[in-house]
């Protein structure tokens, strides 16, 4: 299992040089040069993900800047035994992007409780864009191995920043079903991508 994982993780990409962890350790010691190299390594994935969720370009830049400064600030809290540096970075980026859209949404909701039914973007349009713009063939192939409901649920939650409750309402599916589809969809992706942790 470990062999297979290493091969897949190291082989297919090239996008992710193996030294993000090493750079983070240097950044934790205050090395600004290392931070600049880390910026070059992670700013693309961070900005791409934030932009996918937040959409507005100016706000996406703001959130990206917040995330990168947070990396600088908290680099010493990175624990390599808990997962890769890129996972750590993108987990933070996703959470900050989601925080941004949810706080904006909360303000809107107070005026319009029915916002979900008036959603400005139908979900299949979003899913379509996601599918066509994916850079990584492997991720696209694995996404396409999910059931329709698994894939739609995972994409709406991850790329649009919806809660599972919102996904359930949008797809007119019971909450428990959506919870389960998010989990078993991700587990299938994990196995397809050969993610070890």
């Amino acid at each position, binding site marked *: 299992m470990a062999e297979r994982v290493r091969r897949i993780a190291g082989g297919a990409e090239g996008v992710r040089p193996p030294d993000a962890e090493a750079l983070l350790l240097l950044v*934790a010691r*205050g090395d*600004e040069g290392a*931070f600049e190299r880390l*910026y070059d390594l992670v*700013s*693309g*994935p*961070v*900005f*791409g*993900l934030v932009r996918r969720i937040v959409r507005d370009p100016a706000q996406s*830049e703001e959130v990206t*800047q917040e995330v*990168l*400064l947070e990396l*600088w*600030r908290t680099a*010493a*809290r990175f*624990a390599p035994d*808990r*997962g*890769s540096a*890129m*996972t*750590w970075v*993108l*987990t*933070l980026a*996703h*959470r900050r992007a989601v925080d941004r859209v*949810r706080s904006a949404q909360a303000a809107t909701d107070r005026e319009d409780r029915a916002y979900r039914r008036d959603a400005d973007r139908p979900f299949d349009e979003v899913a379509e864009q996601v599918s066509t*713009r994916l*850079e*990584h063939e492997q*991720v*696209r192939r694995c996404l396409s191995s999910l059931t329709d409901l698994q894939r739609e649920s995972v994409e709406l*939650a*991850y*790329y649009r*920043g*919806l*809660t*599972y*409750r919102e996904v359930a309402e949008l797809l007119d599916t*019971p*909450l*428990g079903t959506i*919870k*389960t589809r*998010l*989990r078993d969809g*991700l587990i299938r*992706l*994990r196995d397809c*991508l050969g*993610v*070890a*942790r």
Partner: protein
Amino acid sequence: MTADIHALTGAYALDAIPEFERAAFERHLHECDACAQEVRELQATAARLGDAVAESPPPELKARVLARVAEVRQLPPAQHSSARAAGPGSTWALRLTGVAAAVLLVVSVSLGVLLVQDRGELSDRRQESAAVVRLLSADDVRFVSGTTTSGMNGTAVVSRSRGQVMLLTANMPPAPDGKTYQAWLMARSGKPKSVGVFAPDQAGRASIMDSMEIGDANQVGVSVEAAGGSDTPHEVVMAMQLPA
């Protein structure tokens, strides 16, 4: 660990858990190594989805970020690295109420409630006390507790065999003027069922058990409603998954 709360690992890894449920789930993660491991794997999986949509930021952003770095102080390493598993921003280290602490809270809050009610009918007190004892001594009694991001504590004591649940809260601020707290039981389907309105005492504590018939409920929650209560929850401030 119950199958129901375990199913939230996927939603959690995707940040798809509403804020009011996140604290309870993170507390559960803290006690469940298997869940924490699964969350790490699923977060790594989700990160691959993020990596796949990389897009170059505008070039001028780099200079802005590098300039700001000179003004931002770095944090020292965490004291308890084992308490962090979800990446930056996680505050698990602050949430370490175990079952033992939940029991203490239950007992102390229950006693507090029983003691402050001494102006009521003696028989009422005895009935309530007996009901609490019956619930706490049930063979299948289970506790779940959590802390919301704003610091409110909630503990639910559940016995499926007795068909009862007791909700205890602590650190609850008074409801805003003209508003009240209302407790709810929620099942997988159907509308949330109101348990009643309540006001925490001066120490922010409350306990609700009267008529908390659990039925097929899998969540207990508290919302803020207009005085008098509502027939459907509006502003949910706390929600916890109940053990199966």
